[in-house]
C-alpha cells in the first residue's frame, strides 16, 4: 500500500464520505463489470457491489486491509459473486458454462493479486483504447458502440442495422480481438 492508499484507508475508517465518493469514482464501474461477468445479471451485480460498500462503511472501524485496495475490493467482489453462484448452482442445472465460470474465478483468484492499475497506467490504457476505437473499421465501431455504450442486445443491433445476428457477433468479436491485441503488453 502506498502513502495515498494509506490516507484513503484512514478516511474510510473515519467515515469520510468524500473518501467514499472517490472510491466509487475509481472502482465502482470496474467492480460492477467484474461482478456482472460472474453473475450475468446487472441488478445482482449492482447489489453485490453496493452491499460491499455498505458493509465496508458499517465495519469501517474494524477494517483491516493488508493488501492493496484494489486487490481487497476485487477479492471481496469475487468472494461475494462466487457465493452467489454456489448458491445458485444448487437450484439451477449444472451447466458447462457454469462450471467454467467457477473455474475462471478460481484462476483469476490464484494467478493475480492485483486487477487494477495505478491511475497513470489507467490513463494510458484509456488512451490506447480510445485510439484503437477510432482505428476500428466503421461498421465494426458502430456495432461495438451500440452494444457497449447503448447496451443493446445482439438481436436489437441486428434489427436496427438490418444485418444478420451472426454478423453482429462477428463485428463484436473482431472489435474485442483488436482491443485485446492493443492491450497485450499490459497484461501478458
Amino acid at each position, binding site marked *: 500500500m502506498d502513502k495515498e492508499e494509506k490516507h484513503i484507508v484512514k478516511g474510510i475508517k473515519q467515515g469520510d464520505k468524500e473518501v467514499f465518493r472517490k472510491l466509487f469514482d475509481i472502482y*465502482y464501474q470496474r467492480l460492477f*463489470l467484474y461482478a456482472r461477468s460472474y453473475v450475468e445479471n446487472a441488478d445482482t451485480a449492482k447489489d453485490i457491489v453496493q452491499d460491499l460498500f455498505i458493509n465496508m462503511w458499517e465495519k469501517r472501524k474494524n477494517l483491516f486491509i493488508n493488501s492493496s485496495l484494489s486487490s481487497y475490493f476485487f477479492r471481496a467482489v469475487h468472494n461475494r459473486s462466487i457465493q452467489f453462484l454456489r448458491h445458485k448452482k444448487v437450484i439451477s442445472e449444472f451447466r458447462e458454462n457454469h462450471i*467454467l465460470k467457477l473455474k475462471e474465478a478460481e484462476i*483469476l483468484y490464484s494467478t*493475480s493479486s492485483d*486487477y487494477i492499475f495505478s491511475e497513470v497506467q489507467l490513463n494510458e490504457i484509456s488512451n490506447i*483504447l480510445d485510439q484503437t476505437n477510432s482505428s476500428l473499421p466503421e461498421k465494426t465501431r458502430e456495432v461495438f458502440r451500440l452494444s457497449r455504450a447503448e447496451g443493446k442486445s445482439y438481436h436489437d443491433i441486428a434489427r436496427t442495422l438490418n444485418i444478420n445476428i451472426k454478423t453482429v457477433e462477428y463485428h463484436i468479436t473482431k472489435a474485442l480481438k483488436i482491443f485485446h491485441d492493443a492491450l497485450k503488453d499490459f497484461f501478458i
Partner: protein
Amino acid sequence: MKLNNISERLIIKYFEGQATEKEARLISDWLDQDKSNKQFFAALKKAHLEIEANAVENDSDTELAFKRFLNHVDKNEKQKDTDRKKKNASLRNTVLRYAAIFIIIFSVGIICYFLGHNISPGAERGFCELNVPYGSRSMVILPDSSKIWLNAGSKIKYSRNFNLSCREVFLEGEAYFEIKKSRHSFVVYTSHLDIRVMGTAFNVKSYPDEDNIETTLVEGNILIESKKSAKPVYLKPREKLTYHKPDARTKVTCLKKENEEEQSVHSAPAEKTQTLTPRREIHIKKNVNTEEYTSWKDGTLIFNKEPLESLARKLERKYDITFSFEDEKLKSYSYSGTLRDFPLEQVLKALELTSPVKYSINEKTVKLYFNKDFKPLKLLSK
C-alpha cells in the same frame, strides 16, 4: 500449449456470454491442460474488463450508486440518533418554519490530515487532527460514537489512543459536542479552559482571535476549570459561561443594556458606553436560548442584538471573506435575526435594506460604508 487464433476468439466469445455448452467445455478442458493456459486466460480476462470499463464508462451509473449508498448510510445514522433528534425537533421546526425561505446546501469541505504522517516531534505523534477552513463546516464521529460539529476556521485534535476510557480532545475555534454517556469523563481542552463532561450536548467557542471563550450547555451538566484558578464551575442546562481571556486585547468592553424589543433584522446604533469597569473573568448567563449558540451547526446563524463587528466576524468565517469597516461607527450597530444558508450577496443586501450600511465586494474583501441617504423601511413600523 500455444493458443491458436480460433481459441482466443472462442474465449472472447465466452466472455461475451455467447459460448455454447460445447464451447464452454472445450475451454474448460483447455484450461486444465496447462498452467500457462490459465495465465493467458487470466490476462485476457483482465484486458477484457478494462475494455468494458472503458467502453461503458458511465458516470451517471456511478453517481446513482453513490447516492444509493449515501441514502442507506444516512438512514442508518439517523435511526441511531432518532431519540436525540426527537427532543430538538419541535424547536427546530419552529425555527425552520419562520426562517426557511430558501435553503442552500452549503458545501462542506473537510481537510483532514494526520500529524503522525508529518515530520513532527515525538510528542505530536499519534494525534488525529481535523482542520476546517473558512467557508466550511464539518462533523466528526469519534471512536466512542460521540459527535463533534466543527464550525468554520476551527481545529480539533485528539490522540489516536482515544477510546472509551481515555476521552480527550483539544479545540481551537468553535464546536458543538454531543457526547456519548460513559463512566469516564470526556475532556475538552481549550487555550484557557478545560471542560469536563460525562454525557451531554454543549457548544464551545474558543477562537484564538477572540477575547472571550464561551460555553453553552444544552443538556446534562458540565464542569469547567480555568487553567489559572483552582475553583471549578458547574454549568446547568441553558446556561452560558463567558470567560474573558486575561491576555485579551480589549480589557474593557461593556455594551449598553440593549433594547428589549424583538425585531427581525432590526438595527439601531447602540450608543457607545464604554466604561472603565474591568470585566469579571467569568460570567454566567442563565436561561439563554441555546438554539442561538448551536444553530450554526445546521447552517443557521441566529443573532440577538449582536454588534456588527462580531456579526461580521461570524460571516467572515462562514463565507471565507474579510470585512473592512470604512466607518468605525458601523461596528457598534446591532442586529437581531436569523440567517440560513443564504448566498453572501443576499445577506449583504439585507444589511443594506435594514440599516444605514452600504457594501462593495472586491474578490474576498467586503468594504462597509456608512449610508447617509438611508431611509428605514416602514414595513416593520411599531
